[in-house]
Every structure is written in C-alpha cells, then in structure tokens.
C-alpha cells in the first residue's frame, strides 16, 4: 500500500501533467498558416486559400504582420479574387486573415508554394522576422473522356437561371401602371356625373323662318329700292329653313342642285315648281340686276310662306283634327 506522501506526489504529478500543455500552448510569438477548403478539384473549379497570421494581443500594438502579395497567377494557379485582410481575435490573440479564390487549368498534383510573411516593427516598419507557411498540395483532376464514344456538338448558350430580381424594374413599373389605372377609374367613378342639359329649342325652324319673313316684310326692303337685298334675304331664309328642317345643305347649293336634292323629300318635292319659279326669279334679281314688279315681290313672299306652311311639321293635335275631319 502507498503512503500518503506518495499518493500526494502522484496526484501532484498528474495535476502538473494536465496543466503543463496549457501553459505550453500560451503563444508568445506570431504564427502563420495557409489552408485550403479542398485539396482536390477538377479543372476550372475553384478553391479557397485562407492565409492566417496569429499574433499575441500584447504584441499587436508594437508588431505588424506583412502579408504576402500574390500576383494574378502563381505557378499552375490563377487568382480569381481576393479579400481584404480581416482582423479578429480576443484579449490574448489577434488573428489576421485573407482569403484568395484560386483556380487551375492544369491537371496534376500541384503545390501552392510557401507564403512568406514579414514581421515588422510597428514604429518604423523594419522587418524583424520572416515567417513562411507550409506548402499546400492540391490535386487538379481532368475530366474523364470516353474516347470510344462519338464527338458531341458544342452546347448552345445556356440561359441564366430565372431570378425575380432581374425583373424588378418591369414588375415595379407594372404595379405602378396598375395603381395609376385603378386611380383613374376611381377618380372617374367618384366624379359627380353631370347630366348635360338638353338644349330645349326655343323656336322651331318654321317659327324662325316665319319670324325672319315678318322682319323682312316690316323692313320694307324692296319698297326702299333694294331689290337685290330683298331676294337675297328671302332665299337665305328659305335655304336656312331647308337646312334646319330637312338637313339639306341648301346654303351651299345652287338653284339646280337644290331642286335635285329636294327630290327625296316628298313633301318638299310637291312644291318643286313653286320653288323653281321663286329661286329662278331670285337668281335673276340677284345676279342679273333684274327688277321684278311689285306684284312679283309680293308673290314671291306669298310663295315662300306657302312653301313653309306646306312643309312645316304638323303637331299631333293638328293631325288628329285632320283625321277627324276626313272621317
């Protein structure tokens, strides 16, 4: 059996054995390391090379680590991209890291060469030490070609996978358009509907023509010697009436044209001879300085009134009266 002091010594030894590696681990100088995310790629595939430098926190202010500057290509490898140097750590250790994305187009086993770091004084950048990483081996495999099979054509251009964000402008524009349309519809619907008031005709074409004829009579135009004016106004009254009452563009038609165009209007056509006589006489007075007699002036006025009377639209009550009388 062991004595108490022996047991104590053994316990002490075990305790020291446990504590010693921890004490050993405590870093006193900067260290560097190079690591890759994979050691085996196919031609053209990419690997990430991560360079790290650890430095005790108490030296961080006085010492600087100079990272290796990699060119765009190193032997057998191409540098695709690189990150900035990132600093992290705790109160005891500071870790500086930089990641490179590399690719290779040569098949075989290649080594990423050792990377040299400079340990510099922070005050004057003087190199006080140099650290190197271990080389990293990478297997670059080629694509296995089955030579027994026939050649295949080159693949066509492949479309990039559809992403909704590629179309954000169109989608936003479309949504805006829909919103604008909704807004316009809403605006139109919400507007107070203004019902246009139907203009109530104050006077019918017949009444207007009769008023104008009375005015012409009252002005005693031909009696004052202005025969041309008398016939001009008389025919204008009649032509305007035809235009308003029957939709015939009489003001823009000559006598012959007008007589042709009244043919489809049965009621008017029944007065054709009277109208021809009137318009022909008026033409002579207007364009040939003819001086019709006073009787002819009166007759023309009478004929105009008769034409108006004959062609005016009858009121329903008048029509009924006629039917009753005929019955």
């Amino acid at each position, binding site marked *: 059996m062991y004595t108490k002091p022996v047991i104590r010594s053994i316990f002490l030894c075990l305790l020291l054995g446990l504590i010693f590696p921890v004490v050993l681990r405590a870093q006193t100088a900067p260290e560097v390391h190079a690591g890759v995310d994979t050691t085996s790629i196919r031609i053209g595939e990419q690997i990430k090379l991560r360079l790290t430098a650890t430095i005790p926190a108490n030296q961080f202010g006085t010492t600087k680590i100079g990272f290796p500057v990699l060119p765009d290509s190193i032997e057998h490898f191409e540098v695709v991209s690189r990150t900035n140097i990132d600093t992290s750590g705790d109160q005891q250790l500071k870790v500086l890291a930089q990641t490179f994305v590399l690719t290779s187009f040569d098949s075989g086993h290649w080594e990423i060469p050792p990377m040299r770091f400079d340990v510099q004084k922070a005050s004057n950048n003087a190199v006080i030490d140099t650290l190197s990483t271990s080389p990293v081996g990478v297997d670059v495999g080629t694509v296995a070609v089955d030579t027994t099979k026939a050649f295949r054509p080159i693949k066509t251009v492949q479309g990039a996978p559809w992403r909704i964000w590629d179309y954000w402008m169109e989608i936003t524009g479309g949504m805006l358009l829909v919103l604008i349309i909704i807004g316009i519809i809403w605006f139109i619907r919400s507007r107070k509907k203004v019902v246009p008031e139907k203009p109530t005709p104050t006077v019918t074409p017949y009444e207007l023509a009769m008023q104008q004829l009375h005015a012409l009579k009252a002005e005693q135009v031909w009696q004052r010697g202005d025969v041309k004016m008398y016939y001009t106004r008389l025919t204008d009254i009649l032509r305007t009436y035809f235009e308003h009452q029957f939709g015939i*563009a009489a003001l*823009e*038609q*000559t006598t012959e044209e007008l007589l042709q165009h009244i043919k489809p209007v049965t009621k008017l056509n029944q007065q054709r001879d009277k109208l021809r006589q009137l318009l022909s006489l008026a033409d002579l007075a207007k364009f040939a300085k003819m001086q019709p007699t006073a009787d002819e002036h009166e007759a023309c006025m009478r004929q105009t009134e008769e034409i108006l009377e004959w062609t005016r639209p009858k009121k329903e009550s008048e029509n009924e009266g006629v039917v009753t009388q005929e019955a």
Partner: protein
Amino acid sequence: MENTSSDIRQLNEKIHQASAFVDLLNMELGKVIVGQKYMVERLLIGLLAQGHVLLEGVPGLAKTLSIKSLSSAINGKFSRIQFTPDLLPADVIGTMIYNQQRNEFMVRRGPIFANFILADEINRAPAKVQSALLEAMQERQITIGDTTFKLDEPFLVLATQNPIEQEGTYMLPEAQVDRFMLKVVIGYPTKEEERHIIRQNLNPQATPEIRPVIQPSDIMEARKLVREVYMDEKIEKYIIDIVFATRNPEEYKLQKLKPLIAYGGSPRASINLALAAKAYAFMKRRGYVIPEDVRSICFDVMRHRVGLTYEAEAENVTSENILSEILNAVEVP
C-alpha cells in the same frame, strides 16, 4: 361704268342671239363625234374664253377627231404635233433655212402657225420644247430670227397627256400647267355611245363630212361678247371664296384639308374661273353669270391648280376630292 337693269336685259338679248351658233356647232360636231359632249363643251369654253385646254385621257377617245372637227366647223386651220423625246423647239415654232438661189436665210414656219393645235402627248417632249409651245400659247406670237410673227386668231391649243405610261415622260411643271385655262379629264363612252361608234366606223359612207358653220371672225366677235357677260359682285365674291378656300381652307371650316394642300390656286385661277364662267353662261345663252356656271367649270379650271402634299397622295386624296369638299363648304350667294 355700272350696268343698269336695262343694259343687262339688252345684253342678255344680244347674247341670246349671238350665241345661237353654239347650237349649230354642237349639231355639226355631233354628226361625227359620238358622246364626248363634255369635252366638246370644254373646247368651246376654251375657244370663247381665249384659253387653252389640257386634256387627260387614255388613247382612242376621239381627242384628235374632236379638235379637227371643231377646226373644220369653224373653217380654221388645224395642225397636229406629236410630241416625242427627240422633238426640237424649231420643229414646233419653225426655223430659218438658207435659200441658195436667193443667197439668204428664209423663215420656215412651224406647225404652230394654225388656229387649232393638237399637241399630242405633250409630256413626251423635253422641257425646252414644252416651254417653246407654252410661251407661244401665252404670248400668241413667235419670234424666229429677228422677226416676230403674230399667231393666227382664234388660236387654241389642245394638249393631251396620257395618264398611263409615265415612264420616260417629262411632267409639266406646275407653273407651265397653270397656263392652261382648263384641264379636262375625259372617260370612256357609254355602251350605247360605243355601239354607235362601232357602227359609224364600220360604214365609212355613213360618216358625214363637217361643213363650216361659222367663220373665225364670228368667234372673235363672240369672244368680245363673252367678256361683256355680266358678273355680279356676289359671283365675284363666290369665285374669290372658292380660290381662297384652296389657299386657306381653315378659314372656311375646312381645317382637315390644310395638311393635304401644298399650294392653292393662283390669281390666274381666279381670272380663268371668272372668264370660263362667263363663257359657260354665254354658251347657255345668258348675258349674266349664275353660281351654276361657276360650279360647272370649277373642277376643270381648278384641278391642276391645287397642289397636293405627299400626305394627300399617300391617302389617295385627289384634287377633285379637295374641290368637292370646298364647293360643299363655301356658301353659294
């Protein structure tokens, strides 16, 4: 001097008597020309109004026969010039030739020295020949060497243009076309007329000969009377309105025509419209002009005086379409 009512009545009677030859002429021409009354009427208007006529129509529509018959009926001298690309101005107006016996240059008059000229297919000759003819039409005189010759009166040029086969032709410039009082577009005869034409042509014995019914001096007298035909200021205003509507259609509520018209009628258009309306009234045996006269000849006087834009041509709008719109918009006095 202002015309009084009695003056116009007297003038009307005078013209009624003086214009009787128009019916005689029509009857005489009707012996050989079947249909084409419209063309013959326009030829007479040109003759009476001292204007020239540009005729557009396909070949074979009795253009030559019409003017030749008119010439015979008036006892005038007729001459036909076939315009070709190699024609020279001297071939039309004449030239100086050297007389070896007399040892001097002598004038050899061209075919233009006639009362009635048929300038067939005028657009086939180069511009210098066209302008030689058009100058003669305007001036009514020709200068060969140092001598100026007055052309015989009445002097009427009937120029024809073929609306098809435009290749290798020299289109008359607008300024030259404007010198023609009328541009008449003629069409095919009716079925009945065509049957009559066939029968007449297959039986040459049945084709009567045209006899002179009047003399050139009668035409000269008639021309004087045509100018005396009374035109009221209302008619003058109507003519001016029509011509102005071709220039400024927007002033006549015809804004839609504005982009279709490149240029409107010139003052020469107004003059010719008035003159042709007077001649038309004369032919209708009236001593005064009425709006019908203006409208009847408006298309023939104006169709070549309204320039169309590319837009109008692209939309197949013709000058006739534009004139119809104008006539339907301008108020008749």
